């Protein structure tokens, strides 16, 4: 058990002494996840709003597909993205493989169903009196959309936070598409995998602590927003 005790001690040393390699993995994780969440919100929010607000033929089937994609395995996404961005793939010339942009694309695909589904659920669960209230107060089409999104703000934040939690904790996409390249595409999860394999528990534990803290923060925010919603 000494190695565990020693691992914890060294982990704190690495974190508080500003060990470059450890902090680079943390920085990469936050950067990649934030970018993927930004783009997934940009695309997912309007789609989620559309799906929750309007009725259209095939809505139920589309919803079923999106809900199924919530449980998409990260390695499957990694495999698919890899197949498309590898040199032989249709997007091979874009140089996304073993690059931060490639991980962003993979995480975007991984989390966008979460953003769409939770946003749609949030919009659907709004009080049915909202729309007639806005109309009879004189709101036009654009104002109705903006006000509806604002009324669903806590549900939307829940969607964003849930998606962020999924992005920072995934390992399949980052490993397969990013390649776990030191100083470049190494994220917390891929670093933990590697260091544990090498028997270097200190860095693994240090990164694990950071991941847990991030996860705790995300969940705390989730509880907060759910309570407000």
């Amino acid at each position: 058990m000494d190695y565990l005790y020693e691992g914890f001690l060294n982990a704190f040393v690495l974190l508080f002494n500003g060990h470059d390699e450890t902090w680079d993995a943390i920085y990469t994780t936050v950067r990649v996840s934030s970018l993927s969440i930004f783009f997934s919100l940009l695309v997912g929010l309007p789609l989620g709003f559309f799906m929750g607000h309007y009725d259209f033929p095939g809505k139920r089937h589309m919803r079923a597909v999106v809900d199924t994609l919530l449980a998409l395995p990260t390695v499957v996404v990694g495999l698919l993205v890899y197949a498309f961005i590898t040199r032989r793939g249709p997007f091979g010339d874009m140089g996304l493989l073993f690059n931060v942009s490639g991980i962003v694309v993979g995480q975007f695909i991984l989390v966008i169903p979460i953003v769409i589904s939770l946003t749609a659920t949030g919009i659907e669960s709004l009080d049915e009196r909202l729309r007639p209230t806005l109309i009879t107060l004189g709101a036009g089409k654009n104002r109705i959309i903006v006000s509806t999104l604002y009324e669903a703000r806590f549900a939307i934040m829940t969607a964003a936070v849930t998606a962020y939690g999924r992005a920072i904790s995934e390992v399949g996409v980052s490993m397969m598409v990013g390649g776990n390249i030191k100083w470049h595409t190494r994220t917390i999860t891929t670093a933990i995998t590697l260091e544990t394999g090498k028997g270097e528990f200190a860095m693994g534990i240090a990164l694990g602590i950071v991941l847990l803290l991030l996860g705790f923060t995300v969940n705390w925010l989730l509880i907060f927003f759910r309570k407000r919603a």
Partner: protein
Amino acid sequence: MKKYIYELDNVEHGYGKFRLLVPELKIVRGTSLGLAGPNGCGKSTLMRLLAGLEEPASGRLLYLPEGRKRHSVTMLQQDAFLLKRKVYDNVVYGLRARGEKFNLKEFVAEALSMVNLDPEKFMGRKWHQLSGGEAQRVALAARIILKPEVLLLDEPVANVDEESSRIISEAIRTMKSRHNTTVVVSSHDLTWLASVTENIIKLSNGKILGSGNSNILDLRWIKGRDLLWHATLPGGATIFSSGPRSGETVAVLHPDDIILSRKKPAGTSAQNCLEGVVKLMVTENSGVIRVEAEVSGKIFNIHITKASASRMQLYPGSKAYLLFKATSIVWQ
């Protein structure tokens, strides 16, 4: 300017099996109209049509300032709904939707004062920090601030205390007198409705059953052996009516067609002689007294003159007999 603000002609609208039928209805500009009737009779459907939230399935509904203007008709729905934001933002929402930017705080303060809420105290409160009555008054303030041409209020006092009810009544009168707003209000409470409106129309099963205090005898009518039909009131008393014609489903008894007597009359031609207790006496705008009498578990409205009430020494709590002919019950 045209006399009528709304003209409805053969309007038909509904959901599933329910159908609202309005053969003809004209609403005079600047007046207040009450809609009375039981749950599911079509009051809210009519309100939604007048608000422009829905278009009638068939027929013609004209709003007469040349087409519907988004900012001139507003509606307060049953059970106040507030946006998830501060009272100030709720009240100012409609003004912002109109693109107004100046003196908003003053307008909000004025609207809140009209519903007897202290602006200083309430402007900064959040939607969840209000009681039911306060929320209803904030929702009303959000409509009042718009100074609309038409104010539609769907059951505004259904779930509020007496104080809120009084304040809402006062706000309605002020809107009418100060801004010449046409007000359409629906309510179960006929007494309250009569106090804030000039005319009342009654609805039942999606049909307009005349105006005023008509008694809608929404009972299980059974055809008797003779030509008469009979129905049992909740307390067990039986009433008789001449039969309906094909397609007529609702029995209505006009309050002018009921005779009140303190003693049980004998030898009259009236088929119906029912014992009741006077519950309420209200002087109507027209000067007649509307008597609410409970007969075998059902409330009947009866119109009498002041002189009759005085001669009979009729007061709430008095026992009285209600007389009316079977043919006085009209089927629609």
